[in-house]
């Protein structure tokens, strides 16, 4: 399947065949980043079947990579986790097989018997499950399951699709989110006033740009971003995507801490795209981008994730 927008999803078949994630590709190299994630909850005669996934696709010059991860859980009537499986075709950050069998065992020991809606009491950050991707997927599943319960629903689905591409003087992200059949679209366009200065690890240490946000085709936000160090660049982008997040939550009638959104990841993805546009070197570009990716996931001075047990 070619991914070039939010695909049609058949919730009834999701729990039987996970190929819809692993066989989905985007070969359009203009899209530096494609990210697709989602959650399906289905009522079964024993309780609930919950499937959560995310798939990132990168086309950064010499760095072409797919990172798909899918988790499936069976819950009992009371919403407690009775089984947790990570599809064996899942891959870690470097696009290689990870020891997901071991992660699955660790997660099982920690989570089996726990109500999914109360996942946060056992898992509050990525180190709790030893994997950032797994943490994001499990948090999204728990949050969406809680949203369904709050609305008196026992099944439903949500999925989100994002593409980010550079433009002549900036970059553009297009995202579509579908929650319980309702769909919204957000476009964020960032136009550089002056070229960002790259510093340590080739991350932007200045930003002077105009931002326009179109929400469902209407311009809803225009802002100027000015930052003169990395912390400020990060804070400015965090603010920007928080505002987008607020609008989306309001559109879908959501309140509280919702975790089935890509919004928090957008800051890192924008930083990566900015770096790609200005990082020097043709031969070493993929290596430099790889280092930035490591930093964004783990922080300065820490070893990159080589896959659990890698």
């Amino acid at each position, binding site marked *: 399947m070619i991914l070039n927008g939010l695909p049609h999803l058949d919730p009834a078949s999701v729990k039987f065949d996970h190929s819809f994630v692993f066989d989905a590709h985007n070969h359009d190299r203009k899209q530096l980043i494609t990210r697709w994630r989602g959650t399906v909850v289905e009522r079964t005669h024993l309780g609930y079947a919950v499937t959560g996934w995310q798939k990132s696709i990168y086309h950064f010059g010499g760095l072409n990579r797919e990172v798909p991860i899918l988790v499936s859980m069976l819950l009992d009537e009371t919403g407690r986790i009775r089984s947790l499986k990570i599809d064996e075709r899942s891959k870690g950050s470097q696009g290689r097989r990870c020891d997901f069998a071991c992660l699955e065992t660790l997660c099982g020991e920690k989570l089996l018997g726990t109500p999914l809606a109360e996942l946060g009491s056992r898992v509050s950050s990525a180190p709790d499950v030893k994997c950032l991707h797994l943490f994001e997927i499990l948090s999204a599943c728990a949050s969406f399951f809680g949203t369904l319960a709050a609305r008196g629903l026992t099944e439903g689905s949500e999925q989100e699709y994002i593409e980010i591409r550079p433009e002549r003087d900036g970059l553009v992200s297009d995202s579509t989110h579908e929650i319980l059949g309702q769909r919204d679209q957000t476009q964020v366009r960032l136009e550089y006033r002056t070229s960002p200065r790259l510093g340590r690890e080739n991350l932007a240490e200045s930003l002077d740009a105009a931002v326009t946000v179109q929400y469902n085709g209407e311009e809803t936000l225009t802002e100027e971003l000015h930052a003169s160090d990395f912390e400020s660049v990060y804070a400015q982008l965090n603010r920007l995507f928080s505002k987008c997040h607020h609008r989306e939550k309001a559109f879908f009638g959501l309140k509280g*801490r919702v975790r089935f959104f890509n919004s928090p990841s957008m800051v890192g993805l924008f930083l990566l795209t900015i770096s790609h546009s200005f990082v020097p070197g043709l031969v070493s570009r993929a290596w430099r981008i790889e280092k930035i990716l490591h930093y964004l996931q783990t922080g300065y001075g820490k070893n990159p994730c080589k896959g659990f047990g890698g």
Partner: protein
Amino acid sequence: MEEKIKEILSEVSGVPLTELRDDTRLVGDLGMSSFDLADTVVSVEETYGVKIPDERFGELETVADILRVIREENAL
């Protein structure tokens, strides 16, 4: 204002309002990420029309810190 800001923190963090004290740590106790912190700041700014400069984000470690920075920056 103090109560309303705690309500915003409760909504962003998912922690009940009754469990929030002035010395509650935003990251250590509430498990907030930098995005959650920005989310809180944006909500407070939109609600009160106040401004919390980016360079003061680093000071926001507890509930009391948010209240203090808002008062200092906006002469409330």
